[in-house]
């Protein structure tokens, strides 16, 4: 596109046609303070902090620079007395209805509103008066404190436009406006999936994960509990950012070292059970596949079930399609079930003496760990879920200098994993990991792609698809000879909704579909560190880091994990009776308005 010329603060600036004034200024290294605007996600003009004076062509009012397009010949002043005063007043008015308990806020020193006040030189709160006080809403995953909300509506944008879930809205008007699911409903009683994308974009402490830090600390300090920790694949490419490292650093070794120093009794890895998931899920797919090939009846396409946000989504929005879901529990739940049965027995403990902590890039996992069906032998499979952010906080609280830690290994045997497990953290990864194993079982040969990557599904597009042809199969898979399996991969609910509608309409061409609830997959999940700057750049870097981790490993196929094979020798085959009792689950029809269930995930009833 052609460039335009305009004058900002007396300096001649060049910007691509179609840029906003804000973008044009930033391109020319002129900084305009802003609050609600979020590149690629939210452009709304709600906060008016980024106002500028449009001198020519003359505009009567100050213009929100995030909204107004820069035009040829425009003359803009971003920092004259009028602008400075307006900006400061705007901030002070926002502050007047904000609870200023910054010292005890989870976002203290990590708050965009706080940082902006400093930047604008605000040192007083002159407008004290009536406040629109609202109750705090606590669900299993998300704590919503409307008294900290500054009505920027980023959460509304991400919920409606990116995730198409439209749970949050602006209710009422003017001073009475609150961001809420409406009707006074708590989030835990709506069709919220707890993906936490709203938590990631919230500039203040109004939306945050419901903390499990205290319960984890209590368990570590309880001498009667054997506390086992397991971090998810995506945590290793996120945790470094909690300590100031740029996006794209994979800190597996420091992560293991930090968890050990925190006092966990066993430092295992969800990756081990990601390999376990592949064996269970791959077996389940092959069973369904074989039935269909041999003229039987089985539900296809099969849908992956690792992402608990996605599970909530399908339960609310497509309750009659639940039999398409794999019955596999998500990897960390499988892990918890194994720890409290198989492993507890090995170390001579009772299931109730074991305490399992999952470190997850995810807020939905907190709700998942409270689901009543995810229990065995009378105890929860997983007792607590910390987000990557919470883990970062706890490491700091415990005085551990993360960046100077040596690289260490996870504990054997349940800390050993293959590269297939690492890529569970990125969109397309679960499918690729499954194909590496399934293809080899059917044909006896390695998945025929360079470096074991299926190029069509290694990316960040909303929906990706590929066809895998089975040729020269093993004798027992004769029925599959020449069969072309169609697979699809999607991340974020906008894509999932499209693929589910096809299934609902009986028009899905696919046999196997991977769905992850958050765009890009777990690497940019709701529990990951908030990206600095453009989330798309962060997502790309984390993805590259996770593929790098896979490629560094010698073993890259789940069925080659020696610790896992040793486990199966004692446990039974994938899909055996014990597997079905401990590693598989069922789902709940909920409906859009929870009309099909009495279950909810409200904590402060």
């Amino acid at each position, binding site marked *: 596109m052609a460039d335009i010329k305009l004058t900002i603060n007396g300096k001649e600036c060049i910007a691509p046609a179609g840029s906003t004034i804000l973008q044009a200024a930033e391109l020319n290294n002129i900084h305009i303070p802003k609050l609600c605007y979020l590149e690629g996600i939210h452009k709304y003009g709600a906060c008016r902090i980024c106002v500028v004076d449009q001198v020519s062509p003359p505009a009567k009012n100050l213009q929100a620079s995030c909204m107004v397009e820069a035009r040829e010949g425009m003359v803009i002043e971003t920092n004259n007395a009028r602008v400075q005063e307006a900006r400061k007043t705007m901030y002070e008015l926002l502050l007047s209805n904000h609870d200023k308990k910054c010292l005890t806020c989870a976002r203290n020193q990590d708050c965009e509103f706080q940082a902006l006040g400093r930047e604008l030189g605000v040192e007083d709160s002159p407008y004290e008066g009536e406040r629109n006080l609202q109750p705090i809403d606590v669900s299993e995953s998300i704590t919503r404190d409307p008294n900290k909300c500054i009505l920027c509506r980023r959460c509304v944008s991400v919920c*409606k436009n990116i995730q198409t879930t*439209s*749970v*949050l*809205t*602006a*209710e*009422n*008007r003017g001073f009475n406006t609150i961001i809420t*699911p*409406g*009707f006074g409903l708590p989030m835990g009683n709506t069709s919220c999936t707890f993906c936490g994308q709203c938590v990631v974009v919230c500039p203040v402490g109004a939306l945050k994960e419901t903390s499990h830090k205290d319960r984890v600390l209590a368990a570590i300090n309880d001498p009667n509990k054997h506390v086992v920790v397991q971090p998810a694949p995506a945590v290793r490419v996120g945790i470094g950012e909690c300590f100031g490292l740029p996006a794209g650093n994979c800190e597996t070794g420091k992560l293991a070292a930090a968890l050990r120093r925190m006092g966990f009794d066993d430092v295992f890895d969800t990756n081990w059970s990601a390999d376990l998931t592949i064996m269970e899920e791959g077996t389940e797919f092959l069973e369904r596949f074989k039935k269909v090939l041999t003229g039987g009846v089985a539900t296809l396409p099969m849908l992956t079930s690792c992402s608990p946000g996605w599970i909530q989504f399908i339960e609310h929005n497509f309750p009659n399609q639940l039999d398409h879901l794999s019955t596999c529990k998500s990897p960390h739940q499988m892990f918890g079930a194994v720890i409290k049965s198989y492993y507890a027995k090995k170390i001579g403990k009772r299931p109730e003496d074991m305490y399992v902590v999952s470190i997850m890039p995810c807020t939905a996992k907190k709700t998942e760990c409270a689901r009543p069906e995810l229990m065995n032998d009378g105890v929860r499979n997983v007792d607590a879920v910390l987000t990557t952010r919470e883990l970062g906080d706890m490491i700091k609280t415990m005085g551990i200098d993360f960046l100077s830690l040596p690289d260490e290994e996870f504990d054997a045997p349940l800390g050993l994993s293959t590269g297939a497990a690492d890529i569970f953290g990125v969109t397309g990864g679960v499918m690729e990991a499954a194909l590496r194993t399934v293809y080899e079982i059917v044909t006896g040969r390695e998945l025929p792609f360079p470096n074991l990557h299926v190029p069509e599904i290694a990316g960040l597009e909303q929906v990706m698809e590929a066809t895998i042809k089975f040729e020269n199969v093993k004798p027992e898979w004769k029925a599959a000879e020449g069969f072309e399996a169609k697979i699809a991969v999607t991340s974020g609910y906008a894509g999932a909704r499209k693929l589910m509608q096809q299934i609902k309409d009986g028009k899905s061409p696919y046999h196997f579909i991977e769905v992850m609830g958050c765009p890009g997959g777990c690497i940019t999940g709701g529990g990951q560190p908030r990206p600095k700057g453009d989330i798309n750049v962060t997502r790309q870097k984390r993805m590259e880091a996770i593929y790098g981790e896979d490629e560094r490993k010698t073993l890259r196929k789940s069925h080659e994990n020696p610790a896992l094979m040793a486990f199966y020798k004692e446990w039974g085959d994938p899909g055996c009776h014990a597997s079905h009792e401990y590693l598989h689950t069922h789902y709940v029809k909920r409906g*859009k*308005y929870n*009309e099909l269930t009495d279950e909810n995930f409200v904590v402060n009833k």
Partner: protein
Amino acid sequence: MNERPDTRCATCGTDENALYDAVAKVIEQYKEKDGALIMVLHAAQEIFGYLPMELQEFIADGMNIPLSEVCGVVSFYSFFSTQKRGKHTIRMCQGTACYVRGGKKVVDAIKRELDVEVGGTTADGQYTFEIARCIGACGLAPAMMVDNDVYKQVNPAKVPAILSRYEETEAVEGGAEA
């Protein structure tokens, strides 16, 4: 679309299914049009008298709009009510002109006369009492509306007479039915 709730009004026994049918017809007429939500809500409030959550769900499903968005619109406009309303709506103007010419005294008189708070509905379900911010009749200040009738230069002494007109109508209707 969801199954229609099978609810009979607990107090008056009206079969709400008939009302839902009427709303469904309105939705059918408007569902393809952009920005038609406000029209549908307006009509639905005419039919039901108010917009309870179940009705908003019904409209959201019918229009294929998220419930949160419907809720956002309903709660934004003071015209829409989520509470059951009286048979008649009294709107006393408290715009600047009406206010300075004694509108506040009329508000107090109505509250006394009907034993009702602003925004509330009388115990017998006859009246909902609201404050309007300028009804565009400043020349008639203080102005008051009952349903679609506008009354000019109202003062506390005139209130009982104005209200009695609506009680009479009610009595005639009741008589005709009997």
